């Protein structure tokens, strides 16, 4: 258990971010190296709680105290085994997870919490460097085939789990590369894409089949998939963006964040991107104060925007945990992402009321008003203002999977929020069709996607077993 008195002896320490002046000039990850000695000292701060709230705060239920201790004891190989037992892709979460575990850390009640996320990343990077992470193909194949639709974190986690259980898994991806949001969504400065490729290599070697450019319901027939596969998992994400229906929305220069960000990923991958939306030299307003907004912010900085502002309709959260979200809940509090360090202004309690443009139909002005508290967001008279803009990025969240196409053709029922509705075993209204990740729970974290992918895989595996049994008993 870490070091008994470690939490009293050592301070929380995180890897340094590279200097803002330096990092906005490139697309590399922003964190500097962090020595393993320092990581081990952070591991020593873990108190090995009787109830490790981090462990339940974490959506994949990482057994955090165990690997904190193993790292402290310099047992990295044991640590990666424990880490992998709950999380297929710690190198992703170790980079981009907002770490609800740390918010739930018991030490966090009255001290800075244990630096769990950096420990996670260090374990997996250590393991890759040491060559401990290699393909683990199943020893026996079951002869069962599973189609996974979508190659984001949920799809990949499910595919790896199902494949290791001996099922033959095909992952269908509508884009040209595997990875979903991990590939086209997360900016490279948060996660460089070799990290993803490295993991995909392992999965390929384990026997997972990947098919890109395969847009089910568009260029692939749903019925055929259902015929050829014993089970189908919808892990297609929640890509339907929430729109801002105000006058002037149709003007040029107003884009969804998910139009803007993937283009940059492509360019980073060396693709030629015709008519790329660039922030360079422009006055940018990002509407939406969340993570996607922050990604747009960081990307805009790197594009060298003339100015960037980020609007949020909610009031500014408190500096510290708000009383409505006591420990160990995910705290309502002001967060400072790396992109915020790099510049730009953040505005709170603002509702955009209209856009106006120039004669060419380019957006030029944004009209807004300050509003009161949720849920009514009552406009405050006399606070109306306008702002010059050249580029508006809408990062206001998503409303569920894209309707029509595959979803309709599969005939699965949706819940009131427009997500695929499932039972406790991840099965949709259609027998044999399962759903996991954002497509099921709505827009969420990568770590939730992995968690759902794993749980859905387990459910599919058990379901396939009952199918085998019923076939056998019928025979």
């Amino acid at each position, binding site marked *: 258990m870490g070091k008994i008195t470690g939490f*009293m002896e050592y301070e929380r320490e995180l890897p340094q971010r590279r200097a803002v002046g330096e990092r906005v000039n490139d697309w590399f990850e922003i964190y500097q190296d962090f020595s393993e000695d320092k990581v081990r000292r952070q591991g020593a701060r873990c*108190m090995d*709680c*009787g109830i490790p709230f981090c462990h339940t*705060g974490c959506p994949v239920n990482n057994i955090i105290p165990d690997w904190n201790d193993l790292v402290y004891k310099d047992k990295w190989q044991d640590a990666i085994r424990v880490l*992998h*037992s709950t999380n297929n892709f710690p190198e992703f979460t170790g980079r981009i997870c907002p770490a609800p575990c740390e918010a739930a850390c*018991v030490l966090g009640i009255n*001290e800075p919490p244990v630096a769990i996320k950096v420990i996670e990343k260090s374990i997996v990077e250590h393991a890759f460097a040491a060559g401990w992470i290699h393909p683990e193909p199943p020893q026996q194949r079951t002869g069962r085939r599973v189609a996974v639709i979508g190659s984001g974190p949920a799809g990949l986690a499910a595919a790896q789990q199902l494949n290791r259980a001996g099922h033959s898994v095909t992952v269908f991806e509508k884009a040209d590369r595997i990875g979903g949001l991990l590939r086209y969504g997360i900016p490279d400065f948060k996660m460089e894409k070799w990290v993803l490729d490295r993991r995909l290599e392992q999965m390929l070697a384990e026997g997972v089949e990947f098919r890109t450019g395969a847009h089910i319901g568009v260029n692939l027939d749903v019925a055929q998939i259902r015929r050829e596969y014993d089970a189908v998992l919808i892990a297609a994400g929640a890509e339907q963006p929430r729109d801002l229906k105000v006058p002037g929305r149709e003007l040029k220069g107003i884009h969804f964040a998910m139009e803007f960000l993937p283009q940059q990923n492509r360019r980073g991958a060396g693709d030629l991107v015709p008519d790329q939306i660039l922030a360079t030299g422009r006055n940018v307003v990002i509407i939406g104060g969340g993570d996607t907004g922050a990604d747009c912010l960081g990307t805009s900085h790197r594009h060298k925007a003339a100015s960037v502002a980020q609007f949020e309709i909610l009031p500014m959260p408190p500096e510290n945990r708000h009383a409505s979200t006591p420990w160990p809940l995910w705290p309502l509090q002001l967060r400072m992402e790396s992109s915020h360090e790099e510049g730009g202004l953040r505005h709170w309690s603002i509702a955009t009321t209209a856009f106006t443009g120039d004669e060419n139909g380019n957006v030029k002005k944004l009209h807004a008003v300050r509003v009161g508290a949720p849920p009514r967001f009552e406009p405050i008279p006399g606070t109306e203002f306008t702002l010059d803009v050249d580029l508006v990025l809408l990062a206001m969240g998503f409303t569920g999977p894209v309707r029509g196409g595959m979803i309709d053709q599969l005939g699965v029922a949706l819940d009131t929020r427009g997500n695929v509705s499932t039972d406790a075993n991840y099965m949709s209204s259609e027998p044999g069709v399962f759903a996991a990740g954002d497509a099921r729970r709505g827009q969420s974290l990568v770590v939730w996607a992995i968690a759902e992918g794993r749980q859905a895989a387990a459910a599919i595996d058990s379901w396939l077993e009952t199918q085998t049994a019923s076939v056998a008993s019928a025979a």
Partner: protein
Amino acid sequence: MHHPNGLPAPQGLYHPGNEHDACGIGFVVNITGEPSHDIILKGIQILINLTHRGACGCDPETGDGAGVLIQIPHKFFARECARLGFTLPAPGEYGVGMCFLPVEPSQRLQTEGLLERIVREEGLTVLGWRDTPVDVDAIGRVARASQPYIEQIFIRGAAGMSQDELERKLYIVRKRAEAEMATSDLREKSFFYIPSLSTRTIVYKGLLLAPQIASFYGELSDPDAMSALCLVHQRFSTNTFPTWQLAHPFRYICHNGEINTVRGNVNWMHARQSILRSDLFGDDLKKLFPVIQPHGSDSACLDNAVEMLALTGRSLPHVMAMLIPEAWDADTTMHPDKRAFYEYHASLMEPWDGPAAVAFTDGRMIGATLDRNGLRPARYLVTKDDLLIMASETGVLPIRPEEVRTKGRLQPGRMLLVDTEEGRIIPDEEIKQRLWSRNPYAEWLKQNQVHLDDLPEPPRVYGSDQHTIISRQRAFGYTDEDIRMLILPMTGKGEEPVGSMGTDTPLACLSEKPQPLFHYFKQLFAQVTNPAIDPIREELVMSLTSYIGTERNILDETPQHCHTLKLPHPLLTNRDLEKLRRVSTGDLLCTTLPMLFEVNAGAKGLERALDGLCRRASLAIKSGYTMLILSDRGIDEEYAPIPSLLALSAVHNHLVREETRTQVALIIESGEPREVMHFCLLIGYGASAVNPYLAIDTLEQQALRGNLADGVNFETALRNYKKAINKGLLKVFSKMGISTLQSYRGAQVFEAIGLNRSLVEKYFTGTASRIEGVGLDVLAREAAMKHAYAFQPVTEADTELDPGGNYHYRVRGEYHLINPTTVSRLQHAVRQKSFATFQEFTRAIDDQQRSHCTLRGLMKLKTIARPAPIDEVEPASEIVRRFATGAMSFGSISKEAHETLAIAMNTIGGKSNTGEGGEDEERFQDKRRSAVKQVASGRFGVTANYLVNADELQIKIAQGAKPGEGGQLPGHKVDDTIARVRHSIPGVGLISPPPHHDIYSIEDLAQLIYDLKNVNPKARISVKLVAEVGVGTVAAGVAKAHADVVLISGHDGGTGASPLTSIKHAGIPWELGLAETQQVLVMNDLRSRIRVQTDGKLQTGRDVAIAALLGAEEFGFSTAPLVSMGCIMMRKCHLNTCPVGIATQDPVLRAKFQGQPEHVINYFFFVAEELRQYMASMGFRKVDEMIGRVDMLEMSDAVEHWKARGLDYSSILFNPQVPGRVGRRCLVAQDHGIHQALDYKLIDHAQEALERATPVEIKLPIRNVHRTVGAMLSGEIARRYGSAGLPDDTIRFEFTGSAGQSFGAFLAKGVTLTLEGDANDYVGKGLSGGRLVVYPPRTSNFLPEENILVGNVVLYGATSGEAFFNGMAGERFAVRNSGATAVVEAVGDHGCEYMTKGLVVVLGRTGRNFAAGMSGGFAFVLDETGEFASTMCNKSAVDLERVDDAADIRGLQTLISRHAELTGSPRARWILENWETMLPQFVKVFPHEYRRALGVPRKAAHAVASDPVTRAALQADADRSGIAIPPAMNASPEVAHG
């Protein structure tokens, strides 16, 4: 319906097998053997003077039983029989039977006829019957109701029969009659009982109070009734259903104590019947079976064994030495031949272990012996006219001082014997010498005993197989946690790991996870009726040695009898086992039987495999094998291991039934056992040794993986692991009050929870299992689950082993009642004062439909059609007054947390509890005061002032987290404040002993209750017990001991630090314990005299409702209030690192404490509010209405769990059928009997002093019935003057006579009690500043230092004051003294044990184990022979030094001068007169801990001396603190005498 011996039949949770007794015993004998009527009168007088050691139940006129045993009064009988028309032959030619017979005439006639027929068949003649005249008006209502018809039968032997032959024949007659009656269908056969049938002795006994016996049995007052000896007994049965038959004396013995191993002893006795042969009995021997009469009490069983061994040819002392041997194993000073005698007999049979003072007689010899621990008092006195009086107390007969030749006490393991034919007392040494010289035992041992080390090295030994280890670990259910939290810690320190905050995981029978069978069992432990032992500080009585091989006919003695293999401890390495497997020495021959079963064949396969195993075991015995190894090596895809405990117990019970069990030793070779509890169970169910090969492989695996601590390799890890297991075993034995592995083996001191009846009856015969549960099918399924996991491929993307989650919460691990959801909901609820959030919390706890966890989870509260309107239900503000917080000491939790709880409870009118650490006096007068002040075994801070400032005094007998264990507060936690409150020294570690050293039995508890009630008559006295089978019986004893409240704690409660074994495996849920308590108290009509409280993870309104319905009036909470104050279940309370400032003394961490009294208050109001809702739905308007209403509970009908569906709660929900007048809750106050206290007189005399501090002085006589003299007076002083008391010597009382127990207890400052005479146990207990002076009568002329003056456990827990004793003290003098100064002239064993402060001077010899666990203060011992330094002192905690420091010398001389002056001690004067020669013979006892706290390094002693400046500075410091600096001296103090 009645049980065969007159007890009620088992019903509900009551079982007659749980009855215990303890008592007062005594005898008087004319050493010359001259019979007289006077002896009988004296015996009865002794009995009457021991009355306070007995008890009465609901009927004050009915005692628990009393009796006398005398020689046959021939003159009287001759006269009486002549009147009846028959003539008695000469003494010795006839026998008299005392017979209890059916009351109904025709039934009685049939019984008499049966007896006469047997007499005739045995070739004897019935001379006649005599109605024994009795006076039924002399006895109580309850006694009358169950009184048998009492007659005497006179039987003549055949012509030419010797007296011994006739005696044996009479034995046969009685045994045959007992056996025939047992199977007869006579309706009133339960009345039948023969108290005695002998040519020498006769027993008069019954359900009587001592003073009733003479009038009930009128003939005892007839001048023609004469005897040379009289053995008497007054019974205090904890239990409740005293009967005529279970009164003592029995035929040979009477017993004060308890045989803890009785189940094993009886089983072994039964098992060896088939090989018994006796020339004296020949074929008649079989008529004696069963040797042990079924359904007897432990004492009755012991009597049966004594009788058989004595009548088959051994002398009575020989029998006693065999059954209750001295602690010889560790005693290197014992004569080698004597050791050989004991070791030889150890190979014959196991000791009957437990606290025991046994008085025995065969009518010619009479004597007494104490068990190896000496945990019962026995004092004797010899007069100049050859009278010997022995009793539990001194002063039971008035003897003029000048008549006294000697006074003494019985010592542990020693025997007192009078042979009336030889006409003298035979000293212990002579008895033992006679015994050991009977045969060349040492020689026999040398030639026949085999040692493991002597066996040849095996050619091959199993290595560890690291390739398959993971799947084997999985197959045996290893979890990652088992390795990390249990096994690895043992390899480092050689100790069991410690945890805290109790347990909140499901019972094994409710867990979703496959459990080891071991976890369906719970350890039993000693409470009240007998003490736990301290296996560390008193290790000299403990032993792990065992002798294995074939047992032979114990009625004979041959060299072959000790042809056994001696094992020093039960854990075998692979090499050890291989040696055994290949043994071929003499008769020792070993074979291996596989304990595997075909996993796919399920329960059937398992049962077949077990049957096969039993059959093969029988065959192996027939083929001459003497050792059977049951092995589960060789599991594979098809075969899974049979749970090792199941296999073992199946074979064991099979062989016991077959009566072949003693011919063979069972050895377990298994991958399953890994933790202490597993080994305990295997041994407790009969294994001789265990080879835990997978645990050993795991150690090697961990070594290979580099997981061992620095500097530990595989070999040291194995050594440490063995050490830890062995220490753990001793600890578990000692919790039950058992000292030796040999007695523990097969003793089955466990209770099963959730195993069904057929499984238990077949495989765990005799084990309590009261709620039914799982059977073989579930056990097979659990094995299959583990097996399937084992043979599933191990992938790298999975943990190798199941993570566990038994100790620390894990998502896919074991369920925990207290989990992230419940903790956060509760904290949010109390902080935001949100009842809605609180209900989310309670739903998460109460809804155990999905995750079964507790017994109450499966209960359902009934509702009625017309609920009570909620506003008619009594308000929450009334209900919360029934709530209490648990005993958490200041020391274990921080000042902030402790005071927050107190403020909260005082605000709502509930009660907080000090815990055992005392309480800062500055809190006494304000809201931070704890209403409940605890009195625990450490007695920390227990002063008169502490006691008078309580509303309730709680005697903690046991605590849920670790029943039967003591505790330890390490020195680094003892800061200035804690030291002040606990009256100790900062930095010095403090030990709480496992037992209260003044409670070794129920009558001792009654005494302590009486003591406390005297000091503070206004306070309720509460006794805290932990649930286990039989707790109801103990609670009944507690009620009879006049406690006002009894608290039944569940096993799961407990917040304190404790070994993990105890947290998980000792004690049972409160639901069972509470229900049993309620049932037994109601059945005995004792419930109305006592309030019942319960605790143990009570959290919600539903929990409280269930507790009330099961019978509790008050409710205790600990975990939930702690969580309300911010506890997040770190379970690191023992490490002082609590990050929320609760369980820590670290100022930095304490600053983080965020709890507020309001949080706790909110919590309790929420609980009360919820309770109100339940009350309304059941139609109750007052809590009082619902107490004991089990009819409102039922088992949840929704139970379809694969394990839980077998459970049956009907015994818990049982409602005893008693008439309506019998109360089901507390309705009347206890009569504590303190109105007779001498102190009322003392207080009258002291009015002037009390009111105006004017000095007073009085002289008074005193007797042994005057108990606790001075305590009430001291309470009065404390109330008026606080701990400061009165000026020195303000009140002076001078007594003459023999003082009763607890003379001068809690004596306050300003009082001096002087006693000319002698005193019983507990003199100066809790001395609080007063002064005690005791010296022998001025007219006596025995040597004071050689005669016992004050009894055992003198100055226990004294905090300040002085005591001067001109004579010898008994065992445990100044135990846990924390500040008193005492001078005494000799002491018994264990002097100054656990002492933490103060000063003791011993002007003479000490017993063994002096200064064990002593951590502070000093002792000076006059060691004239060098024996003290060489053998008597336990030097593990202390150094011995010469007294050559000037301050020490001055101080010592002054004290001895005062002793001489106050007591007139001739010895003190002589020492002072010869000071120059005597001084060098004094030894100073200096505790290591104390030295460390004073900062005086041991080795630097030279340097200190050679550097005068430093020394002067040190001395100056020391002078300020009143402590002498250790002198510079020879580094090896033991050679001080050169």
